[in-house]
């Protein structure tokens, strides 16, 4: 039985979720699998046919086992919602994902910390994508304006033959606080991995991104992409690593960091390595202030300088 306080918490999360741009109706739709976690409480966990979600509350968070059954093609995106509504709290999510062979799924996660003054959100994910399975994961964060938050998402992802892993991590609303992102993917034969991170650092935000892709199977493909915009005194560091270890493996590391302001600091460390003579890995990294010609292009259409910069920043982070 759901207690009164849980109902209230659930209501609070759904409200915050909607305010953050989430689709409230998705959380109410019976055909949509969903999981809502507040702090270390599971407020709702509903699977649909083809998916199994098991949860266990711990002292500091929740352990989650997420199964997509063999051959299951999940029609509606699965909605995950993690949050801490009070000013302080610790949330540790331990996530185990098993997407079995030939399954297909889209997962949309919203992470909501609107009032964080001292909040830590950690995720440790161990993810297995089966042969020819497709897994698309998009995580969007909504932080408040206090910046007192630490976000530490770590994932190890194994992608089986012909499997596809695509993930996008977006932290562009509110202050980042401290971000320490670390995703590592291992690709077997003909597997595809795409890691995308977009973050907007302001004030004293500190952003660290570490994307690693191992192309271990023949014909595996990888893309490690990062887009950072840094203003005020924000710091950003992006490490993009790709290892071509098999014939015909193709990888690309692509990083853009826009620095808007004299005190912001950006660093990019691309590492590309090839241990097989038939593999090929490329990289491009662009760090710098916003391109003046782009700004003037928009100004020549009547935008003010600030508006022009805003359009460019929004474009990069889109």
């Amino acid at each position, binding site marked *: 039985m759901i207690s009164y306080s849980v109902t209230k918490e659930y209501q609070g999360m759904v409200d915050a979720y909607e305010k953050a741009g989430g689709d409230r109706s998705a959380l109410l739709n019976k055909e949509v699998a969903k999981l809502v976690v507040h702090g270390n409480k599971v407020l709702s966990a509903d699977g649909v046919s083809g998916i199994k979600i098991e949860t266990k509350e711990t002292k500091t968070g929740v352990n989650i086992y997420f199964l997509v059954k063999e051959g299951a093609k999940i029609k509606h995106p699965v909605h995950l919602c993690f949050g801490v509504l009070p000013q302080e709290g610790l949330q540790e999510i331990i996530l185990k994902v098993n997407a079995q062979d030939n399954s297909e799924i889209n997962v949309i996660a919203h992470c909501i910390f609107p009032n964080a003054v001292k909040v830590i959100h950690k995720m440790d994910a161990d993810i297995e994508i089966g042969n020819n399975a497709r897994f698309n994961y998009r995580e969007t964060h909504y932080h408040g304006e206090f910046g007192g938050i630490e976000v530490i998402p770590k994932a190890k992802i194994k992608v089986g033959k012909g499997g596809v892993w695509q993930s996008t991590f977006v932290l562009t609303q509110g202050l980042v606080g401290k971000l320490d992102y670390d995703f590592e993917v291992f690709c077997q034969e003909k597997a595809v991995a795409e890691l995308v991170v977009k973050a907007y650092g302001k004030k004293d935000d500190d952003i660290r991104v570490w994307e690693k892709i191992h192309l271990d199977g023949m014909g595996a493909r990888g893309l490690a992409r990062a887009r950072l915009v840094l203003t005020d005194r924000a710091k950003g560091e992006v490490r993009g690593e790709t290892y071509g270890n098999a014939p015909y493996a193709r990888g690309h590391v692509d990083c853009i960091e826009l620095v808007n302001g004299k005190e912001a600091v950006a660093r990019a460390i691309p590492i590309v390595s090839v241990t097989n003579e038939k593999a090929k890995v490329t990289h491009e990294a662009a760090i710098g202030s916003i391109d003046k010609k782009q700004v003037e292009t928009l*100004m020549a259409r009547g*935008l003010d300088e600030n508006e022009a910069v805003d359009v460019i920043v929004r474009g990069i982070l889109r």
Partner: protein
Amino acid sequence: MLRVENLQLTLNGKSIINDLSLHVNKGEIHGILGENGTGKTTIAYLIMGVNNYKPTGGRMIFEDENIADLSVSQRAKKGITLAWQEPAKIEGLTVRDYLKLGGNNFGIEQVRYYLGTVGMDPAQYLDRDIDSTLSGGERKRIELASVLAMQPKLAILDEPDSGIDIVSLPFIMNGIVEMNRRGSSVLLITHNEKVVEIAHRVSVLCAGRILMTGAPAEMSQWFKDNCRKCLHINVPEY
């Protein structure tokens, strides 16, 4: 509409624009014909006010107002715009949104129309970004469409024909004529004497100075006979 008088620009001790005078009348397509390195892009930048170019002498009067001290945005708001010789590519900005930027709140039908005018299939391009996935020629046609969409009083077109394939060129020419028909004066900058056939008047540019202004056919002929063989074209300090 635009009166440029005795314009001067010296960069790093080098005189790039030399005592240049030019009048663009309301409603006209005014061609500027000049070989490479004669200062065409520099004139475009000076009038638009981009690239930190500020005249070191002379005047630029637009509709009876000195524009030399206005920002790029202010000049644009007065109705001046520029189609760049090599337009910037911008990640995450769609063709649709780019065309809507300068326009006054028009709908998608107009965006489609302007794309069609430069020979681009809206279904194929509307939702693409104006980023490096576009070819140079595609980006230039979109640039022209966006100028069309803005319906400026004065459109400065810096070599709208360069980098355009032979099949698309008629669409570009058509777009320029259409822009003019809808009320924009056009400063049509090019090194191709065929392109200025659509102009009402043409000025020949040499070493940062207007040598003469006249009817297109006459100026084109003179340009072919003289400028093409000229040996001091890239030596502005002649």
